[in-house]
């Protein structure tokens, strides 16, 4: 598969969404919580509490929706500022109750629109990034489809970032890159290639810690092993002192472009 095939696979409507992962991994233990306490409940972001084996966790996901009706409701996974603020509220709550955080990332990007700008899309993303940098509880982010720029990063300032093998993470969409740089939308595939946006490229660049095999819809064993892997990683990070945890996360990002 070339880079653009990966982009296509990552965007496929058959791809499992955050809700699919939450249902399969946490079953009935997931209790959804709503709203940012400031403006609204953004359905592009799902969040709540759940049990990972015997450990209470906070789970947050960017949700694209699984059919047309859901996709419309969830704005195709493109969050508004209130979505990011809801996520931050739940993360702060997790910190308070010393729960680790698991984020699922799947978005083409933060929504571009009048309301989103009016309500401070840039400020909301900036605040998430800054606060996550110093959050005193372990965080894992898993990219399960598309990771579109700042709108994805706002849920991915984590101790470890993992990606499904057919997922992508990029500073700009290949379409955007081709049209801005070359003014030529026919060169999208080429842009996908040079942006180095596949899980495999990003692993090589040291931007992610693991590539996860794509689980099939009803491959329950795969979700079980993912849970075990998450559990082990969270446990390892839970043993660090709060300062060590935050310092390690700082250094994880500090190293990019430090040469």
């Amino acid at each position, binding site marked *: 598969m070339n880079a653009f095939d990966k982009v296509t696979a990552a965007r496929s409507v058959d791809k499992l969404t955050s809700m699919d992962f939450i249902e399969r991994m946490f079953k009935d233990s997931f209790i959804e919580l709503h709203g940012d306490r400031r403006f609204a409940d953004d359905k592009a972001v799902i969040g709540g509490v759940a049990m990972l084996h015997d450990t209470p966790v906070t789970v947050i996901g960017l949700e694209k929706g699984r059919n047309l009706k859901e996709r419309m409701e969830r704005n195709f996974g493109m969050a508004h500022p209130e979505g990011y603020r809801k996520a931050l509220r739940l993360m702060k709550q997790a910190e308070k109750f010393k729960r680790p955080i698991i984020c699922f990332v799947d978005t083409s990007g933060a929504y571009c629109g009048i309301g989103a*700008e009016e309500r401070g899309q840039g400020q909301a993303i900036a605040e998430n990034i800054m606060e996550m940098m110093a959050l005193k509880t372990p965080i894992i982010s898993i990219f399960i489809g598309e990771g579109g720029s700042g709108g994805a990063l706002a849920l991915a300032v984590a101790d470890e970032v993992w990606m499904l093998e057919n997922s992508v993470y990029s500073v700009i969409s290949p379409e955007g890159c081709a049209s801005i740089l070359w003014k030529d939308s026919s060169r999208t595939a080429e842009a996908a290639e040079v942006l180095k946006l596949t899980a495999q490229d990003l692993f090589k660049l040291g931007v992610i810690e693991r590539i996860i095999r794509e689980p099939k819809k009803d491959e329950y064993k795969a979700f079980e092993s993912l849970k075990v892997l998450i559990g082990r990683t969270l446990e390892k990070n839970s043993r660090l002192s709060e300062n060590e945890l935050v310092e390690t996360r700082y250094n994880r990002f500090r190293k990019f472009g430090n040469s």
Partner: protein
Amino acid sequence: MFNGDIFTFLKPKNELESQPAKKGSEENRPYIPDAMWVKCPGCKDMILAADMEENNRVCVKCGHHFRLSANKRIELLADIGTFEEMDADLQSKNVIDFPEYTRKLKSAQIQSGESESVKTGVCKIGGIKTVICVMDPTFMMGSMGSVTGEKITRAFEYATRNALPIIACTVSGGARMQEGILSLMQMAKTSGAVKKHSDAGLLYITVLTDPTTGGVTASFAMEGDIIISEPNALIAFAGPRVIEQTIRQKLPKNFQTAEFLLEKGFIDMVVQRSDLKETLYKLLKLHMFEGEVLPV
């Protein structure tokens, strides 16, 4: 006699997202300092370039704020002879081997006379020592690459270690796509350094200038304790053109200007360039530690 293309700064706002390099245009065109007349995008009048330059690049007729290079802004804000640059030797590399990037960097360096899109250092403002980061609009439209992020991060770390306030003057088209994901990571890196500085109880002031967009808006630009903007500056996450294309409708006239953000509650004040230094001085002074006196 007036050639509307001479000042590439003067393009209408909606064109500001990085444009592809056309042969022999924009990027490679030399800046001509002695061009006599410029058309002011504010009042549409022809004004004498020399008057505008003399007036800190503000239109003498209507007060329109033209863009300011990093050097000019440092000259405007820092007490004479007090600016000491840090990390001037850091140079961007083409880490992901992006086509044309090496050449683009070189021409940006030639065109701007700067080594990167930000200049960092320490200076004094009204005698008060502060760290300062100033972005340059002529260097790849102030885009944030790894070295931009690194210099800003180091400036914050220096300020934290030395218990100094910090001022960041932003102008940026956003993250630099030629560095792929590594440019995105700079948003996290710089924000982490801002947070540490903040947790140390130190003052961070941002000065947003036209245009501040994308990954810079969605990171350190919006993280200041106090956020100032120059009049009429475009401040956005998604640029107006991208939004118009997405929602297929015209945007309200005032949309995404500094004044609009002030009304919506996202910035503290809009300050004229002529008052900027004094405003910063007053804020710095008010945040000095108890019992601290100026070393004069």
